[in-house]
């Protein structure tokens, strides 16, 4: 690596030539405040919080975009720098709705932290304030422009990473606002509800639609049997909400706190993930053997499904007809489980704890109510669960060890790895290869499908077929992959798509890590590592060996793809017009 010599705050350093001043300062353990900066996503030098003095430059320079060069002399703490940062911050604060006490991002707000760090005691500029309506129509995402600091982190992730492009900066000058085209609510534009904008937002301008009250009401209703299920990615991130390190595995704490909150049963969505593998694996085998529509594309990610419905309607027949795991589970709970418990489905209230905001929209899709009642009544994000745990005064870090309830508690490791990109493919391979080859796999870890490469491809010789699979995470990557198939450049049997970069572990409903953490530590890797550790510790690691799933087929569904399975576990999709005009 070519190196250059620079001086920062009188310290001489040798740093890689392609560093920015911000990276060089970080390397020297010198903190420079940032607000709009989000590494690899938003590097635009817009907010001017990171200004520094560069010798020979006419004005202060934005450290986040200024490249180092030989002999560069930088001051990060001169009086001019401190004054400039303070004035900038005060100006931002002067047009900010400063209701911090009741803001969902209090404690995790980057603006609040900056105000504290820069020792802001008063906002001297008390001028006109923008007062704009809050967009609360979407079942997934709430947008409050009064708290927006115009950093454009949400715009960049929506446009450049996800290629969804439903929000942008509109108007100009003091009237500048981040909004949808024609100020339409997010529910009327091709928003996929992925929530990546929420996890990119430094403040409380974007948040999930809070549904915790609905859950409290159900828990307090004596006539309601309230069942909760938790997605795999929740257990490797929830701890962060309680100050635990990245990658902490908190499965037992999570179960114990759900018990204390008063849920009647605590089940594992991973069981339904195993069920998904049985159904989707069978679908794949059938399509390959009977010349069905290929590639088969996974349908676990509701953000991806809506993206496909808006942008790739020609691929709707490629989508697996399998409902996403938690929807399958909801349908099973209101049918098989209800019968077993001697309850009417109307008395069962299903809550899903998900790393996902798109699942809130998904749960409201009218076709996902196989029993005549919604499969899932309420979806809470990981963050909302943390709020309930705090509200109940539960000391999350010191709880007794608890396990998931029976029946349908125990899942397989294959179900757990659904939480990371490549996980569904690996879980499917563990089952499909064994079924097609009629033998037990020696090594069940398909490491080629793991990792954070945007598009992963694998080829595998299985029972005389060269099985070709591809994995995309982040809808921007999915777009590239589907375009290459449309153009006839690529052919696959199986494609896994997760709407969020990294898969569910970094879903839009997960704990928010500030820019100064996630810019330098890959959350996708830290959380995925915990997922794969969970898998390793499971007694059963293949979906078809999950005794609960086997029992479910014996007692109820007969076999994968049966008529009953289709009624309860499968669904269909619709073409959605972008910006319908009356």
């Amino acid at each position: 690596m070519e190196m250059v010599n620079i001086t920062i705050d009188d310290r001489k350093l040798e740093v890689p030539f392609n560093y920015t001043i911000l990276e060089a300062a970080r390397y020297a353990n010198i903190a420079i405040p940032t607000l709009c900066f989000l590494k690899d996503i938003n590097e635009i030098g817009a907010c001017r919080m990171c200004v520094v003095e560069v010798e020979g430059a006419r004005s202060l320079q934005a450290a986040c975009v200024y490249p180092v060069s030989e002999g560069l002399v930088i001051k990060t703490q001169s009086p001019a720098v401190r004054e400039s940062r303070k004035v900038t911050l005060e100006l931002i604060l002067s047009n900010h709705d400063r209701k911090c006490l009741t803001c969902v991002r209090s404690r995790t707000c980057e603006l609040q932290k900056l105000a504290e760090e820069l020792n802001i005691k008063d906002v001297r500029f008390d001028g006109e304030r923008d007062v704009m309506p809050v967009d609360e129509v979407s079942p997934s995402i709430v947008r409050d422009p009064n708290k927006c600091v115009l950093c454009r982190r949400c715009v960049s992730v929506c446009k450049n990473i996800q290629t969804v492009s439903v929000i942008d900066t509109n108007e100009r000058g003091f009237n500048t606002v981040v909004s949808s085209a024609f100020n339409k609510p997010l529910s009327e534009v091709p928003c996929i509800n992925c929530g990546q904008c929420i996890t990119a937002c430094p403040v409380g301008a974007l948040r999930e639609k809070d549904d915790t009250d609905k859950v409290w009401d159900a828990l307090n209703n004596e006539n309601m049997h309230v069942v909760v299920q938790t997605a795999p990615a929740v257990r490797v991130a929830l701890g962060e909400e309680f100050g635990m390190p990245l990658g902490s595995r908190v499965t037992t704490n999570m179960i114990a706190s759900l018990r204390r909150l008063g849920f009647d049963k605590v089940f594992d969505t991973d069981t339904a993930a195993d069920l998904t593998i049985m159904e989707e694996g069978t679908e794949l085998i059938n399509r390959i053997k009977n010349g069905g529509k290929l590639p088969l594309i996974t349908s676990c990610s509701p953000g991806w499904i809506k993206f496909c419905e808006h942008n790739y309607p020609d691929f709707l027949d490629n989508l697996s007809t399998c409902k996403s795991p938690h929807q399958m589970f909801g349908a099973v709970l209101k049918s098989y489980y209800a019968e077993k418990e001697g309850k009417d489905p109307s008395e069962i209230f299903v809550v899903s704890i998900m790393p996902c905001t798109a699942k809130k929209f998904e749960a409201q899709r009218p076709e996902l109510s196989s029993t005549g009642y919604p499969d899932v009544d309420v979806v809470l994000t990981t963050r909302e669960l943390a709020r309930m745990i705090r509200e109940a005064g539960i000391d999350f870090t010191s709880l007794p060890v608890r396990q998931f309830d029976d029946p349908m508690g125990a899942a397989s490791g294959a179900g757990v790895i659904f939480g990371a990109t490549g996980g569904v493919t690996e879980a499917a391979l563990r089952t499909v290869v064994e079924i097609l080859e009629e033998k037990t796999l020696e090594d069940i870890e398909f490491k080629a499908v793991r990792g954070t490469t945007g598009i992963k491809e694998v080829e595998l010789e299985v029972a005389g077929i060269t099985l070709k699979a591809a994995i995309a995470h982040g809808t921007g990557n999915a777009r590239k992959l589907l375009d290459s198939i449309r153009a006839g450049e690529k052919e696959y049997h199986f494609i896994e798509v997760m709407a969020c970069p990294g898969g569910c572990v970094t879903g839009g409903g997960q704990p928010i890590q500030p820019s100064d953490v996630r810019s330098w530590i890959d959350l996708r890797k830290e959380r995925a590592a915990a997922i794969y550790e969970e898998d390793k510790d499971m007694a059963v690691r293949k979906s078809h060996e999950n005794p609960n799933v086997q029992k479910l087929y014996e007692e109820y569904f007969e076999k994968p793809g049966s008529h009953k399975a289709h009624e309860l576990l499968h669904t269909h999709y619709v073409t959605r017009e972008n910006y319908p005009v009356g």
Partner: protein
Amino acid sequence: MGSVDCCCRCEAVDEKKQMLLEVIEKHRDRKGALIPVLHEAQEIYGYLPINVQKTISEVLDIPLTEIYGVVTFYTQFSLEPKGKNKIQVCMGTACYVKGASGILDKLKEKLGISEGECTEDALFSLEATRCIGACGLAPVIMINDDVYGRLIPDEVEGIINKYRNEELK
């Protein structure tokens, strides 16, 4: 109703769409095609409603949100329909001092619309503009290419009626 494509409810909707597609075709392979396309689209339609922006978005493969961002950034692009007769009230310093606000208020009253709007019959649209360079005639309004100077509010009605009568002929 003809279509929301057009505020004057004429029959030329498809013709306009055809012209728009030709404009887009002419520019599509050039870098920075969006702004010239928006200019010419506004010449065709008089303004840039959602249908027009949507067509541009689809053909140029630029997200609608981005186009809307450009349209709302530049003041010369309009989201509101313009009338057959475009009234511009100069609010430059000289006109302002000489009572342009009174002229503007009278126009609003007589037309029953606010700034940036178009009358129900699509005959007039009203805008307040920056200095149009006729300070010696302050206060000044322009209707299309006609200039009316040294106005007093009471003259406003007569001027409007002149255009209304022309329409009746």
